[in-house]
């Protein structure tokens, strides 16, 4: 009887999960072996043809590279900032609640709204960044979002701003769970604050760091909303990311086979990260 009840309770959720997660994932894999059908030419089996075409697609490699730089540029910076923020608001800082609120606020704002605001900072000449640059340093105007060399870093700065406060709360939780005796002991021994951080706090935060690292990496593949406002992936795909490219290929170029193939690549990347997460976190990497 317990078997029946168990499955009965699970059924409604299971139907939706299979319908919108497992089935579409399997169908995507299946579709990636077929060509895109048109009115004249129906879809047909092409084996690994779509994958071969993808390997030849320079935009795919560019976008994948962008994703890598995007992850490398945002994650360590945001995490380092998050750790500093957490250390600050964990101390007897005047107006601590206000400071903590300031750090965290970007997290609750939608990326679309954030990008709307930042777009104006980056606008050449009339934008705030150029105005400030001209006023303070007499710097010439930059087309921040129009220059292929500047556009990815420009979006990364905004994402660091958006994410650091979110990572901060995990460090804050970890710091608050550290026994206060450690700090007392260090103080009695006369250890400097920097020494204490380097030899005690930082190593003890290692599990949190790994946890945040893996989650941030997974997240970096899903953060694409800002591109719709700021750059549309341009110029020349210089700021495009994998998920945004999937969207373009599927809904602007209507090449569903290529989009399915790209989605499979994204799914494989996420699966690899899932395994990494399992190995690093489920097995608990503890400081010895």
């Amino acid at each position, binding site marked *: 009887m317990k078997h029946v009840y168990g499955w009965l*309770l699970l059924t409604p959720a299971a139907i939706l999960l299979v319908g919108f997660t497992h089935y579409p994932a399997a169908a995507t894999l299946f579709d990636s072996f077929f060509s895109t059908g048109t009115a004249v030419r129906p879809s047909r089996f092409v084996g690994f043809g779509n994958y071969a075409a993808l390997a030849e697609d320079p935009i795919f490699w560019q976008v994948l590279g962008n994703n890598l730089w995007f992850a490398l540029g945002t994650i360590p910076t945001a995490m380092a900032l998050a750790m500093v923020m957490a250390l600050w608001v964990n101390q007897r800082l005047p107006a601590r609640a206000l400071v903590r609120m300031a750090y965290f606020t970007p997290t609750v704002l939608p990326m679309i709204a954030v990008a709307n605001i930042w777009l104006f900072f980056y606008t050449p000449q009339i934008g705030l960044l150029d105005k400030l640059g001209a006023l303070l340093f007499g710097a010439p105007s930059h087309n921040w979002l129009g220059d292929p060399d500047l556009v990815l870093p420009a979006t990364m700065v905004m994402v660091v701003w958006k994410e650091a406060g979110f990572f901060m709360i995990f460090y804050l939780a970890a710091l608050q769970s550290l026994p206060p005796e450690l700090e007392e002991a260090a103080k009695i021994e006369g250890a400097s604050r920097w020494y204490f951080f380097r030899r005690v706090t930082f190593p003890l935060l290692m599990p949190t760091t790994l946890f945040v690292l893996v989650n941030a990496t997974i997240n970096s593949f899903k953060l694409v909303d800002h591109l719709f406002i700021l750059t549309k992936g341009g110029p020349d795909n210089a700021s495009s990311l994998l998920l945004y490219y999937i969207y373009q290929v599927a809904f602007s170029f209507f090449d569903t086979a290529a989009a399915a193939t790209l989605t499979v690549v994204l799914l494989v990347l996420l699966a690899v990260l899932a395994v990494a997460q399992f190995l690093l976190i489920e097995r608990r990497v503890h400081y010895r």
Partner: protein
Amino acid sequence: MRVFKTRIPVLETGAAWLLALLWLSPLLYAFWAAFHPAELATHFEPLAPLTLANFAKAWTYAPFPRHLLNTVILVTMILSAQLVLCTLAGYAFARFEFAGRDIAFGLVLVQLMVMPEVLIVENYRIMARLGLVDTILGIGLPYMASAFGIFLLRQTFKTVPRELEDAARVEGCGFLGVLLRVYVPLARPTYLAYGLVSVSYHWNNFLWPLVITNSIETRPLTVGLAIFGAPESGVDWAVISAGTIMAVSPLLVAFLLFQRQFMQSFMQAGIK
């Protein structure tokens, strides 16, 4: 408690405040631009008179009330379905022994990694087949069975002492009665945390709603805001700021009022 806490050096306090100011400045700037005429968007006169004209314009340029209504319907619909579905499934995983349970649980967890927005291409096709393209139900449906919710509630239900369940059974409760009278009330903090995270997530969600909607009657705030704020739309900066402020203010006000609860919920959501 923490008697030994050191007071931090003045320089560090200054740096912490400066960073806080820097972090708030984009938002403060948006407020400045929204409440002043467009000419003042880039030069600051502290005593310039405030105006609500930008809000009035934004309100008429774009169907904000409709988008707001859509978002409220969407968020409410998703959350209520999630609460029911995840409670039932979480209860099944926490307290029932059934064939294939561990495999089923593993399959549920797959969704933590493969969120519906990753599968936009295929999910769009499914919605087309179901005739749900351009409906609010179509936006919400893929998110209703949330792996994260199931996981969170399973963990919470597992901590409920068996004795309480046994006592309720002696009193004559069936298995659904036990769920409603024992498990659900005891999991109230989990429901609150989950609810906050779910509402914030779907209030801010963009990619899937963009893909699946194409009319004013279904588009949520984020999608409406993206169309409104696009450079092609030619709307001036102050009005875009006003629109942006309008779109974020409900959630922002909620956050400012329940800061601690928000941060704790987001943390719980991250740690799982």
